[in-house]
């Protein structure tokens, strides 16, 4: 079962968005992925996650400037789902 964990950090100053996501990653279960809502592109965070086996996709949001989807590539369930939903290429 795939589960979306929404992390809205759009009103938090740096580095709280970073800390919030790391907190969620620690408790991420099988099939879970993070849907982050942010006013900025958190590029250093995404780089660090990439280097540690996480994939991420970023898109412009409707109400919040940026939506970022983060999942663990070692988790087949969330990896397959997120790739098909957010990164079809």
């Amino acid at each position, binding site marked *: 079962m795939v589960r979306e964990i929404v992390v809205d950090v759009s009103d938090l100053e740096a580095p709280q968005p970073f800390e919030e996501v*790391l907190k969620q990653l620690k408790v991420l279960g099988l099939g879970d992925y993070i849907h982050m809502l942010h006013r900025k592109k958190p*590029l250093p965070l995404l780089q660090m996650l990439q*280097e540690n086996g996480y994939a991420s996709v970023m898109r412009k949001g409707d109400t919040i400037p940026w939506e970022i989807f983060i999942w663990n590539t070692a988790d087949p369930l969330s990896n397959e789902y997120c790739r098909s939903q957010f990164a079809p290429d």
Partner: protein
Amino acid sequence: MNLHKLSLDTIPPILTPFRFFLSALLFGVLAALLLLYSREDFWFTRWSNSNLALTHLLTIGFMLMVMMGALYQFIPVMNGQLIPGSKKLAPVIHVLMILGVLALVSGFLFSNSELFQAALAALGTASGLFALSLLPLLISRLGNQLIVYLLRVLFLVLLITLGLGLFLLLGHALPELNLPYRFYTDLHVLWGLAGWVVLIIMAVSSQVTPMFYVISEFSPRYLKILSLLIILTLVVMSFYTVFISKQSGTDSAQPFIYYTLAFLLSAELLVFVFYTLLKIAQRKRKIADVTINFYRLSMFSLLAALMLWWVAVFLPLAHLTYLLAILLIYGLAISIINGMLHKIVSFLIFLHLQKLSLKRPEAMTLVPNMKQVISTRNSQIQFMLHLLSGSLLLISVHYPALTVLAAVFMLANFCWLSWCLFQAYLLYLESRKKILACPEISMSL
């Protein structure tokens, strides 16, 4: 859907920006010591050796040095790619900058043309290399990104300011050329303060403050139009000064044009001040943060400088040049740099330690938070010292007997900043050692 596939390289080695920050502090301390040594004589004439030396210790040694370090750090964070050559070229540029500033300042102090020649070579090479390393980004197709637009504008303004500066330096280095370098000094100052300083603060305001203070995004259209207007006004003022005012031999020949242009420039700067203050007042989460006071102080200094300048048009004001220089260099520029260094350094240390601890879950608790890197109390002391030293500098222009006191507080200001940054760096080294001692495992479910 606008999907981005990311290929990121956003975190340069911590020493890349730090080496610029730490040596900038040294020049700040030297500037204060020079004022302490010069005492009342400092205010004798703006053309005095110590005056020119101190101004360049602050503008190139402190301000430009910090700006370079900050660009090495923040361009990748905003843009996703390191500045080309940042790992190998940055140390070379850094050393050249240090040598160049030392040679320039010694050249002023000892009126030595060989030292000016050395400064010309070192600063010319350093700024040329820095410009070259920024070039790929500036000509990239990322022009629709606001940060790239702002960098292009900044690059142009810095090029003109440094170009004029190097031209003036050539006049000092080769006196036999008889260059009219004094004539171009005011233009150099105008481009440096109303151009470079204001535009870099605009860039920082639009890119860094929304990140740290949850200020709503600056309107890109506002930033583009205002920066363009400022540059256009400066260009017209420069042409007027060089081709009309110089030929007629006096500014008073066509005062109307001059004052119209100056009015335009000050109106543009006023828009910038009020827009920024409004943004600060409207921030979403009004959490008490002493570093935002540096920001307000910076804007109020610009406002005070503009008001003073306009008062001086109608009423003769003694020592106007000094007052404006203090308000614009120490008030506008160094206030914001001071506050930003407290924020940026804490953030950088947090970022680098988090990066290390990601592969070592046991070490997560060893990463200090930003308030532990530089405490609120230390930032408050910094603000008081900066405010006090800036106020004393302004007062000592009229009461030169207070110059020593102003210099002591200025020294305390830069020493305290050095202490805050240095102990933050020591904390980084200590935490890094502890984190690296933890076993490395990949993060897993």
